[in-house]
């Protein structure tokens, strides 16, 4: 039985939805109360009107005798929309507030793995999924949790107040409303929940499949197999249509049953009213119309419940994904102090990726003295980038020793950012102004500082030409920085941060050789007085380095100055010649 209600099972271990219900508790209670009052007013309006005209039809001598129902009718008439308006504002506001907390929590959780975030998540396009999850959770609150609380509140009010008038009638209402509020939604989940989940799976599969093939559309066209794919896609869509047809068929039948329940409630009230208040002209009989008519507006509070319950299965995936994110842990930050010189010392460093068996680094011994400019070369997969993440302390060697000024970089935590600056393949520019993007390097940098580094990286004139100068939004309409310019901006950031060590992780991949050369020349000039570790697979500009290291299969294969290698190493000479097109 529990498997039929995956949401309930999920909620048991959940730490993403439940905790937020406790947040801003008063607003939450207010929203639900307003929701209940909306329907009390709606029912009240029909109740008092029914009574008012019945009573008036008995032609009381004095209008004052119907004064109270008149006032109540007007009052309910005005308050119903007011309550509904207030309820919607309060509940939406609550949900958005919750979303802010929610996003923060999500960010904090992902931040812990920040350096590897892109390599880990971008492929599955988790970003889209995560923002979709936020929307799902918002819907879960607005469409399922709130309306259910409201319905339960109304249920209690109806059963208790009728129960006071007549315990037997209270019992009948307990059963009939109970069928609508609990039985129909549960039945929907049992029958249609699985179908709805399946529909989502089929849709996701179609989504992935279509994306895959639209990305490869060039090949479909050249292979002249395009019609073949269209037919194949349409065929696989039939499954979706069949599921949807079954879903809708059940929903139509269920909606009809819900109306039958409402009819039963109306008839029950009619019978009860006739026996309790009927039998003579006017008098107590004025109440019959009041009770019967009051029931119809409640339909609005009930009609959505089964559909909302049925949807919950779709949210389960979102909840699963969110609950699978690593919980936020706060690590103590008492980082050790570093004293110059900032030398790297690697002794027999080994590294194997978690959950793999292949050793990526197989005993690297290396000393990188402060101020040295070193290029690390190697084929892709030779362990270059792994070495870089070890140097920054993002990964810890599985064996051997790696220290910076005698301290393991991993012990420094976020403080490593004060010592090592990084520029990688695709420097990220945030969707904000040029100035803000640069100040990420140093939040306290003055505009004069910023212009100074822009001049150093050769972008001063470019930025001056922009419509709003430093205040221009990056990637705003019509403005896109080219690959080379992005790298220069990234360099400017590093210069503002004034880190003594700079790590360049294949910074120029994809640039054309001329741009590459110009960018690298700027890099070398601007970073003259720093330790420079340059990971590359091209040899453009390598003469500017003090030292070239070759990694092969996780071990050092060459080590020397560019001049030495050019004289003594045939392989180096060959690569150099090819790279220059000689």
């Amino acid at each position: 039985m529990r498997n039929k209600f995956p949401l309930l099972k999920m909620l048991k271990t959940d730490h993403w939805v439940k905790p937020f219900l406790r947040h801003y508790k008063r607003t939450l209670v207010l929203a639900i109360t307003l929701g209940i009052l909306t329907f009390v007013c709606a029912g009240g309006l029909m109740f008092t009107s029914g009574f008012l005209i019945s009573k008036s039809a008995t032609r009381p001598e004095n209008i004052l005798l119907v004064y109270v129902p008149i006032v109540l009718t007007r009052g309910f008439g005005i308050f119903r929309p007011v309550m509904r308006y207030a309820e919607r504002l309060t509940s939406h506001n609550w949900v958005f507030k919750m979303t802010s907390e929610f996003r923060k929590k999500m960010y904090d959780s992902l931040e812990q793995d920040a350096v590897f975030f892109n390599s880990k998540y971008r492929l599955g396009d988790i970003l889209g999924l995560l923002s979709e999850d936020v929307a799902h959770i918002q819907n879960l609150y607005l469409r399922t949790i709130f309306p259910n609380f409201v319905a339960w509140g109304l249920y209690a009010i109806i059963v208790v107040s009728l129960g006071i008038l007549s315990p037997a009638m209270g019992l009948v209402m307990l059963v009939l409303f109970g069928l609508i509020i609990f039985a129909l939604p549960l039945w929907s989940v049992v029958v249609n929940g699985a179908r709805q989940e399946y529909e989502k799976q089929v849709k996701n599969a179609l989504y992935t499949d279509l994306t895959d093939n639209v990305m490869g559309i060039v090949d479909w066209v050249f292979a002249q197999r395009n019609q073949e794919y269209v037919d194949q896609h349409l065929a696989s869509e039939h499954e979706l249509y069949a599921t949807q047809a079954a879903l809708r068929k059940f929903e139509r039948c269920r909606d009809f049953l819900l109306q039958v329940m409402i009819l039963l409630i109306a008839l029950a009230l009619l019978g009860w009213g006739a026996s309790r208040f009927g039998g003579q002209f006017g008098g107590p009989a004025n109440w019959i119309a009041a009770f019967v008519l009051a029931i119809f507006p409640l339909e609005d509070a009930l009609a959505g419940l089964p559909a909302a319950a049925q949807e919950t299965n779709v949210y389960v995936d979102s909840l699963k994904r969110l609950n699978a994110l690593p919980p936020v842990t706060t690590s103590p930050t008492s980082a050790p102090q570093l004293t110059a010189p900032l030398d790297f010392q690697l002794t027999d460093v080994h590294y194997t990726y978690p959950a793999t068996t292949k050793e990526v680094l197989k005993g690297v011994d290396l000393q990188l003295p402060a101020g040295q400019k070193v290029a690390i070369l190697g084929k892709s997969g030779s362990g270059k980038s792994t070495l870089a993440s070890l140097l920054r302390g993002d990964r810890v060697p599985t064996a051997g020793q790696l220290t910076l000024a005698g301290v393991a970089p991993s012990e420094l935590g976020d403080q490593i950012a004060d010592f090592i600056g990084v520029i990688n393949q695709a420097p990220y520019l945030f969707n904000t102004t040029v100035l803000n993007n640069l100040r990420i390097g140093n939040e306290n940098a003055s505009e004069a500082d910023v212009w100074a580094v822009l001049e150093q990286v050769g972008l001063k004139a470019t930025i001056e030409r922009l419509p709003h100068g430093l205040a221009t939004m990056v990637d705003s309409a019509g403005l896109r920085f080219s690959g080379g310019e992005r790298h220069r901006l990234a360099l400017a950031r590093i210069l503002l941060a004034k880190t003594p060590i700079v790590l360049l992780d294949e910074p120029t991949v994809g640039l054309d050789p001329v741009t590459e050369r110009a960018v690298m020349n700027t890099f070398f000039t601007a970073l003259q007085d720093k330790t420079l570790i340059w990971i590359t697979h091209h040899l453009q500009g390598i003469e500017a380095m003090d030292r070239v290291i070759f990694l092969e299969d996780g071990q050092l294969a060459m080590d020397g100055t560019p001049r030495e290698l050019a004289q003594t190493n045939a392989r180096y000479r060959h690569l150099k010649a090819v790279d220059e097109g000689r």
Partner: protein
Amino acid sequence: MVDRLLFTINGVRSMLGKLVGLHVLQAFLIIGQTLTLSAVLVGLWQGESLARQMPWVALFILSFLGRHGENWLISGILDRFARANAQRLRSQLLAQTFTFGPALVQREGTGNMVTLTLDGISQVEDYFKLVLNKMVNMMVVPVLILGVAFYLDWLSGLIMVLVYPLIILFMIVLGYAAQAQADRQFATFQRLSNHFIDSLRGIDTLKYFGLSKAYSKSVYRSSEDFRKSTMATLRIAMTSTFALDFFTTLSIAILAVTLGLRLINGQMTLYPALVILVLAPEYFLPIRNFANDYHATLNGKNAFHKVMTLINEPPAPQAPLTLTPWRPTDELQVKDLSFSYGEGKAGLAPLSFCFRGYQKVGIIGMSGSGKTTLINLLSGFLTPAAGEITLQGQTATTLHAAAWQKQLTYLPQNPYIFSASLRENIAFYHPTATEAEVQEAVHVVGLDDLVAELPAGLETQIGAGKRALSGGQAQRIALARAFLDPNRRVMIFDEPTAHLDLETELELKEKMLPLMADHLVLFATHRLHWMKQMDYILVMEDGHLVEQGTYQQLQAQAGAFQRLVKQMQAKEEKDAQ
């Protein structure tokens, strides 16, 4: 308010006719339900027994069930109608996408096309389902109810008539206000809602600067800003619903009170008063439903219009060429070919050249020099603005021709690997290839190691979300595809090695060169070392073809090619000085 485009869909007229009939019946059932219920209530009020009301009760039950039973029927009919039309639109859109090919996808974006085809058309389906029904419902039911109200009591009828335009007026005014507010805030909205994604995308950069922990606060703050501006817009949108609600409930209250007063004065009797009171909410129900679904229909309407625009777009012109497989004596001659992307983006200035037989043609230039545009013109993805093309002696204005594309193999910078088995990927251009042929292709491009390493060999699933391949391996798979189809004698390369490291590039080059023999090869790159192996070279600069000739000729001239070479080797000369 009525969407004209709706009348272009299949069977819409007969559907509308059916709906009008069904809603007239619906209105009668609603009225019947009201009349019978009121009769029961009045009977009981007069002190009669419930047993004497039984015929009326039975009629009430019948009309109530009839009404909801009919709803069941209507929604079934509409479901089928909407689904059939959505299905048709989807197949048309897919057919259009896959005939238009890359040009359309490039213009609209892969994500957008996929979303439009799947989610967009689902929204269109909902739109079809909702809009016709709600429209007919709103036009038929209130009118008939109003008729009954006027017949029973003209004053109540008058109140009901007067409130209606008031509701519509307020909805329109507030709807515009909400729209204006939303437009004003759209830019802010976009920025704020993207902020979260932006911070996740740049999370590694933040970490590198030691800022990622502190940034958490900024994420929260901007989400709060987003909440505030969203609420400001929502408040107006909700005010519009509020106005609708307010007028409907208030007019029910007013009806009840005026009816009550006239009942006291003896100006009317209970039965008509009760009927009007019960009918009043039914009178307002259609417009309330319409307003509630308004946003759902708006999205669907926009998607519908977008889909129709794409479907009705005339396809790019095709050249009706009949070609034989490329032979050593064939020629591709191009005269004054030019291209323009429209405003803002540089195209190609008129250029002329002639390729002959199994020539290997290098196209060299820096990023943005127009190499890729030229490649796209030659492969037929773009339609030239002007120029004359002569192919095997036949003239054409574009290379968008099935007969030409059938001969091409295209290797881009990042060849696409389908989410399928390695075998299916290799045999993509030639699905009926035999085992021996596939094995040979694997061997020729040097994929033996990969096949040996994969758990299920050739049957291993690769591609997105499956086993990741390196750039070099992807290129080899693309090469194997080309090798498998011996009828494709023209190879087009667009910077195939730009993302590869030098040694991988050299290994690949070794495999590629033999495959290029006996083919017409068009090879765009910015890597100089390929030029030695080319028979003919085009040098591109800023959208112009600045130089052409053989490697030896270009080396001898003091021109663009020499300039390029110099720029790339600048450092050494400085060293030498």
